[in-house]
């Protein structure tokens, strides 16, 4: 591997081996920097990587893991309390809503039917009243003598000579 970029990236994580350093020097020969600057740069890079790798770890409390697990347990308990209350609401609420809508629907239908029946009864009563106000009809036997009926309603023609005398 003679790719200078790849070798540099390896050098960011760990000091380069002598073989890798030689390969990097070889690949950087075409760089404008002179050999001394290049060598200095490579050494600084290597020293920095070593220094970064030697940064000591931050101290961690001996009970850190126990504290995390205690926090996780509190979280689990909090979740189960929340899910229980949600569970009871999740189950009951739809059922209550369904039952309430059923009751409402039945009540609405009952009210509509009742109203319709009342309206019909009212109409019936009104028609009965209307019929009861009609006077007694003549016997149908009268209709047999049609001529007699016609003369009953006939009015005599006006006496025009008599009218002229009065004028």
């Amino acid at each position: 591997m003679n790719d200078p970029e790849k070798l540099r990236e390896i050098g960011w994580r760990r000091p380069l081996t002598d073989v890798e350093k030689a390969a990097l020097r070889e690949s950087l020969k075409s760089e404008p920097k002179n050999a001394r600057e290049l060598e200095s740069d490579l050494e600084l890079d290597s020293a920095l990587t070593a220094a970064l790798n030697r940064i000591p770890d931050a101290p961690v409390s001996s009970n850190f893991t126990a504290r995390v697990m205690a926090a996780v347990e509190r979280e689990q308990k909090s979740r189960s309390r929340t899910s229980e209350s949600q569970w009871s609401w999740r189950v009951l609420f739809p059922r209550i809503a369904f039952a309430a809508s059923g009751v409402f629907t039945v009540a609405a239908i009952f009210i509509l039917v009742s109203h319709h029946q009342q309206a019909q009864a009212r109409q019936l009563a009104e028609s009965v009243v209307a019929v009861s106000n009609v006077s007694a009809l003549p016997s149908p036997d009268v209709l047999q003598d049609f001529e007699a009926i016609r003369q009953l309603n006939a009015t005599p023609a006006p006496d025009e000579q008599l009218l002229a005398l009065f004028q």
Partner: protein
Amino acid sequence: MPEHLDPDAALMLRVKQGDVAAFTELVKKYKQPVINLIYRTLHDLTEAEDLAQNVFVQVYKSADRYRSSAKFSTWLFTIARNLCLNEIRRRSRHPADSLDATHPDQEDQPVHQVEDRKVAPPPEQVLHGELEQKIEEAIAELPENQRTAILLCRQDELSYEEIAAILGCSLSATKSLIHRGRETLKQKLKPYLKSGVWDA
């Protein structure tokens, strides 16, 4: 379960099924690198542990959303970095709480305990002498993205592509961040690096 499943992903699949022991293994494996990253971002050990605890609790709470196609360490460090950024933003909104403010539950105790500088501070356990202090200071002065990129480089299990995923930028941008960060560190630490103390 696929044959070539990442061991951490296999543990995480067990966590999804409620296996607490599997989660304990993950915490033990990653607590150090997570705290290392957070400590060097926030520069406070107590806060680093508190935030690291939140990271793992968040991982546990989000277990249902974990996909085995994603590498666990990438996912974990993404959560860690995001919580760090949230804390940095929170600090920038509340830069200086009163040092005289009293604790809400114990009025005779201050909220902020100021360390006695005559006594050796806990960070001395971390820093070994002036040389290490210099590199810690130099790292702390880097921009957050360069610092995070360089610190994540120390995690051998993370490839540069995975570091890019954690940072939320392209591979080339990530390598550029690492390169620029390292150039800044080399300039600041040149006398110490040339002294040969950190020869490989």
